[in-house]
């Protein structure tokens, strides 16, 4: 779809459309909100998220920036300090490395370093993840890195509903909030209440209840986890799927609750295994729910290779439904 129009209550839309509606609502609601980034305007958004918004809001508020990630992310910080409510789009997490200094050294530090004098109500959106044969330089999953940094908030909407609803609380938050949109989700479809339900920024959500084991994941891996849960159900294994939604602050209570209920856990994360965010989840569980565990926690992550172009190689490098199922079986003591 390329049209922006009010979606009737309970309509089905794509993740991309949901994001677009969220931006549009925010622009309509608050004149301080603007969208800035490479090709958000005339081009229509590199992944089509902002298509048609340029025509509606014009070049001042749908602001195309030159190729200069560090400057326009930093300008977002400055504009937030100057009273605006910028939404900065960094095309992909891969290019966000060029702006990392601004995000980590300035956006994340300023409130604390100034003794609380300044707030930076800035939203930074970016595409993350692999799965579209874009090869080694366009396939990173680095949201775990951002989730390491105090001062930032890190969201990873994994459902169309979250994509629709998450921007409003992100903009209302006085802190820098990063939103990671997994590239494979843009075409995902789902129902959305209209007006969208108010959601909290933080807090995990149980996407599927279960009793036998917990599958803990977020973002682009959520559909895989749900598919795996379906497959496991066929075998009579009841998997509870926990969607973290927000990586920082982390909803540790929700993680411990599901683990204490199921006693077994599989963590799924598209990052490379060593030093993945899944490691944090796994470590937390083993540290804080050690005596509740009936089996070691399993991680399903990407293989430790730069993501290759060829489809069969890329598929083999990324977490798969099959791998999740097998990890679940292992943790259930059913060796395969």
């Amino acid at each position, binding site marked *: 779809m390329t049209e922006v129009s009010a979606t009737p209550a309970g309509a089905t839309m794509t993740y991309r459309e949901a994001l677009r509606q969220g931006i549009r609502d925010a622009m309509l609601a608050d004149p301080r909100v603007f969208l800035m980034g490479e090709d958000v305007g005339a081009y229509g958004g590199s992944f089509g998220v902002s298509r048609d918004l340029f025509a509606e809001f014009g070049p001042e508020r749908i602001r195309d920036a*030159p190729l200069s990630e560090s400057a326009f992310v930093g300008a977002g910080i400055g504009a937030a300090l100057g009273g605006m409510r910028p939404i900065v789009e960094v095309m992909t997490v891969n290019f966000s490395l060029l702006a990392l200094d601004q995000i980590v050294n300035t956006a994340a530090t300023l409130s604390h370093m100034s003794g609380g004098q300044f707030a930076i109500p800035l939203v930074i959106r970016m595409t993350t993840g692999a799965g579209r*044969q874009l090869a*080694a*330089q366009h396939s990173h999953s680095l949201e775990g890195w951002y989730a390491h940094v105090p001062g930032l908030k890190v969201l990873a909407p994994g459902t169309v509903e979250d994509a629709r609803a998450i921007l409003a609380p992100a903009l209302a938050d006085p802190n820098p909030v990063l939103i990671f949109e997994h590239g494979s989700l843009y075409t995902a479809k789902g129902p959305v209440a209209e007006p969208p339900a108010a959601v909290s920024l933080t807090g995990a959500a149980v996407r599927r209840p279960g009793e036998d084991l917990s599958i803990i994941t977020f973002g682009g891996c959520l559909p895989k986890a749900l598919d795996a849960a379906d497959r496991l159900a066929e075998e009579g294994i009841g998997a509870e799927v926990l969607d973290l939604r927000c990586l920082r602050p982390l909803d540790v209570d929700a993680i411990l609750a599901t683990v204490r209920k199921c006693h077994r856990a599989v963590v799924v994360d598209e990052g490379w295994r060593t030093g993945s965010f899944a490691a944090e989840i796994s470590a937390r569980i083993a540290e804080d729910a050690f005596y509740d565990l009936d089996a070691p926690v399993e991680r399903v992550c990407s293989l430790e290779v730069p993501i290759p*172009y*060829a489809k069969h190689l890329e598929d083999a490098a990324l977490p798969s439904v099959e791998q999740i199922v097998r990890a679940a079986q292992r943790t259930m003591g059913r060796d395969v």
Partner: protein
Amino acid sequence: MSTEADQGLARLRSMLLARRFEEKCAELYSATKIRGFVHLSIGQEAVSTGAIRALHDDDAIVATYRDHAHALARGIPAGTLMAEMYGHAEGCCRGRGGSMHLWDAERRFYGGNGIVAAGLPMAVGLALADKMQGRERVTACFFGEGAMAEGEFHESINLAALWKLPVLFVCENNRYAMGTALARSESETDLALKAASYEVPAWPVDGMDVEAVEAAVTRAARGIRAGGGPHFLELRTYRFRAHSMYDPDLYRSKEEINEWRQRDPLHSYEQRLRDQGFLDDESLKATEGAVAEEIDDAVAEAEGGTLEPIEDLTRFVYAEETA
């Protein structure tokens, strides 16, 4: 035939090979044989052909994601490139790179950099190695005009100029960075003037004229080899197709595109060769035929290729021996 005629036909053939190769890529993309991001140079072939012809075999070439024409001009066999885009083990990068990442160590083709402007520091380093080791080679670095807004451009050209390194900065100004027109990206749109602010000899060139490109690069490379430090060329050109296969091409008018198509570097060069008496219908047909055959062979080779075994997926994450 005269040498001049030979050269002319070679230029035409090189551009034609790039054009037909990329037309085939577009076709194969639609047929889902090729995937990922694919960026075509159609319209810009005079740049890659002209520039790379003017370089020596042991010079280095650093390219971007828009790299098919450059790889072909450098002499990487079309079959190897096509196999790469098929994701096959016979590809120049064993299927790991795809369209955006064509690399060839033997031909000093430092390929396929997918991050805008990220090849520039590498070019500076290659040139630094040459200078420190007393070799008289040039490193030619291709990039788009959009890349000039990136900090890495600024840092790299300053470093090259400061250290008087043998780098040729080849800016392919095709007027758009994805959908962003030059004037919406740079406060100063005279790119040679910008480059000159680093104390680097710099001038604009008609990038639709293959001989003009070749002459300019020859002259710049000579200046570099003579110890004149880095040079910068702005090659004014245009891409006829969308930025990539995903681009709905909403940001420019049909008229503008058509105007530039009038200046198609292949057609105008074909006409020039005819005017000079170096080309007639028959020799054109022969050239077209030879190119078509080369492309057919390339596709056949790719079709017949094999997949890298999945067991080898983690091979080459680390180099196996010292280079």
